[in-house]
């Protein structure tokens, strides 16, 4: 028997306790045995199930979630309560809640972390959310590589069922719910909700054309809601404390707390729960969070919300174009549009130090999207291959100056021309890398030998925002 060493001792130094900020999801993360039903209940677990099923109507639960302002934590940021209210409720037709635990966005590992350490937070959220939506069978679609987490969830479901929180006539309220874990087969595209539903039906993960949206015709053609792990777990504190209380946390339309997966060249990578609105600078440099850039190096760039969102140079990461501090919120990260901003996305925060090569990283990401394109739409199937090939030759000293504009041209022709957002996700990293780091791409062409053995560093990466417009004009 091999050890299940996914609880790596080397990662135990990552402390998630921060007494300053409120924690809703990870409050009890360091409590020994919190993965068990017994300890989870001692810490107040399953109160939300009791409260919702015994004292609230499904509509009232939906109303609390609407009031909370909770926005989808998987990446799109669509208001969860509104998504729920779109669910069609035809008589005599089953409705489904499907949890999207296909966490595959490079830079994102918060769901894996939550499911590993506090599986009951997700199970409890699933019960309350299924009740709100009138679902009697729900599925948690977990990416297949997370077999250890699948076993953890199955064990937690068995515990919850034995305690009367799942199955027939839950807590004597007459509400019935069966909850199952479904493994994926290894495909990034299945994080797209309609591809996920195809996969759950035992097919290739090809995204469906929308409309109809899953709320009308989802799993097996029935009305279906698909929500991310973190969104569903957040329903628990919303029901416990009320939507208004939840909405008091955060800033503006970015309410509540958010799990941020921090990776790359940081002193303390790991999963952190932040109150939305935290300054990016504090998140990177404060000892409560990432503790600064590893090995005493300088920050060169960040990808703030998973590989699909635009990369930003250090100056625009820390400050808006007008010089004000940038905050960890949906609005502040997007401030300035794609010219000077990015997106919160899934909260996959990747930091690049001064020694990292932007061209190499962009090539790496493009290879990822080429590999993960389902092949259904030709702009994405062919275009991602072009991006990978052109970036490969630029990175390996065989590029031409015209390749940079060709890259821009190809990504423009993918973006917006595909059934699902994978095409956009493949385009944005390339576009933003050229927008902010064009000098570095040019250096790879001018110095084909030197660029093989040394790095461009962070010198001279002024932000030629105007160039974006020039390039656009040329290619239109």
């Amino acid at each position: 028997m091999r050890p299940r060493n996914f609880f790596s001792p080397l990662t135990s130094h990552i402390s998630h306790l921060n007494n300053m900020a409120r924690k809703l999801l990870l409050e009890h993360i360091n409590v020994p045995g919190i993965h068990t039903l017994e300890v989870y209940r001692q810490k107040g677990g399953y109160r939300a199930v009791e409260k919702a099923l015994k004292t609230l109507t499904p509509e009232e639960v939906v109303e609390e979630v609407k009031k909370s302002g909770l926005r989808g934590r998987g990446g799109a940021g669509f208001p969860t309560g509104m998504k729920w209210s779109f669910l069609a409720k035809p008589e005599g037709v089953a409705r489904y809640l499907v949890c999207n635990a296909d966490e595959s966005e490079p830079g994102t590992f918060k769901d894996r972390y939550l499911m590993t350490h506090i599986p009951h937070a997700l199970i409890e959220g699933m019960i309350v959310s299924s009740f709100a939506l009138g679902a009697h069978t729900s599925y948690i679609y977990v990416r297949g590589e997370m077999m250890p987490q699948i076993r953890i969830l199955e064990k937690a479901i068995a515990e919850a069922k034995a305690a009367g929180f799942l199955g027939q006539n839950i807590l004597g309220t007459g509400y019935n719910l069966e909850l199952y874990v479904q493994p994926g087969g290894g495909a990034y595209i299945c994080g797209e909700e309609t591809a996920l539903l195809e996969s759950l039906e035992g097919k290739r993960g090809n995204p469906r054309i929308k409309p109809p949206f899953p709320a009308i015709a989802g799993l097996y053609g029935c009305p279906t809601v698909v929500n991310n792990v973190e969104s569903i777990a957040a329903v628990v504190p919303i029901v416990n404390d009320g939507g208004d209380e939840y909405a008091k946390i955060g800033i503006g339309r970015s309410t509540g707390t958010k799990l941020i997966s921090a990776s790359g060249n940081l002193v303390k990578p790991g999963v952190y729960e932040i109150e939305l609105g935290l300054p990016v600078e504090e998140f990177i440099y404060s000892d409560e969070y990432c503790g600064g850039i590893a090995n005493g190096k300088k920050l060169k760039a960040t990808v703030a919300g998973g590989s699909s969102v635009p990369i930003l140079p250090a100056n625009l990461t820390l400050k808006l174009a007008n010089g004000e501090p940038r905050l960890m919120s949906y609005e502040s990260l997007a401030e300035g549009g794609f010219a000077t901003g990015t997106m919160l996305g899934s909260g996959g925060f990747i930091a690049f130090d001064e020694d990292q090569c932007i061209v190499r990283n962009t090539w790496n990401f493009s290879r990822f999207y080429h590999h993960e394109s389902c092949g259904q739409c030709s702009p994405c199937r062919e275009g991602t291959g072009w991006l990978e090939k052109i970036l490969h030759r630029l990175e390996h000293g065989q590029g031409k100056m015209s390749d940079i504009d060709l890259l821009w041209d190809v990504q423009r022709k993918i973006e917006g021309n595909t059934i699902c957002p994978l095409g956009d996700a493949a385009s944005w990293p390339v576009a933003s890398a050229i927008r902010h780091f064009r000098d570095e791409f040019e250096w790879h062409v001018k110095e084909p030998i030197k660029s093989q053995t040394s790095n461009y560093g962070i010198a001279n990466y002024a932000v030629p925002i105007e160039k974006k417009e020039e390039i656009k004009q040329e290619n239109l």
Partner: protein
Amino acid sequence: MLKVEEQQPVTFSSALVANFDEIVARYPKGKQKSALLPILHLVQAEFGWTSAAAMDKVAEYLHIEPIEVYEVASFYSMYFLQPKGKYVLEVCRTGPCCLVGAEKIMTHIENKLGVKEGEVTTDGLFSWRGVECLAACGFAPVLQIGPEYTFYENLTEQSVDKLIDDLKNNKI
């Protein structure tokens, strides 16, 4: 690539079929095809890879056409359509892992095992390959080994050496 040349017929044990039955019961009547991905995982765990012969048997069990199984098995990255080593070291090769040395780890594994990506060592014990993001970027570099998909995190050349030696000597 799907390997379809002459294959020995495959039989599923009654214990395995009982597991299939349990999975099929999770879905509404007539929607048994939903069990396809989980069943293919069980088949691969049992036989070490997903052969055409095994897929034909799965199709028969689920009352679907064999092509419906082939097209799924070839779409997803986790199903091995060729025999592999007993231990397949799958190293994450996506951006965040590469920022902290995943490429060096892959080169090291290639040298240590003496086989290229996808090949099998002569003793039949090991294969390795790069895979895309495994959602463990904060603990990078990482690798996983099926069929339990145990994760090994914060890899160094030394920890990889030890892992390979331990697997060789049946210490894990």
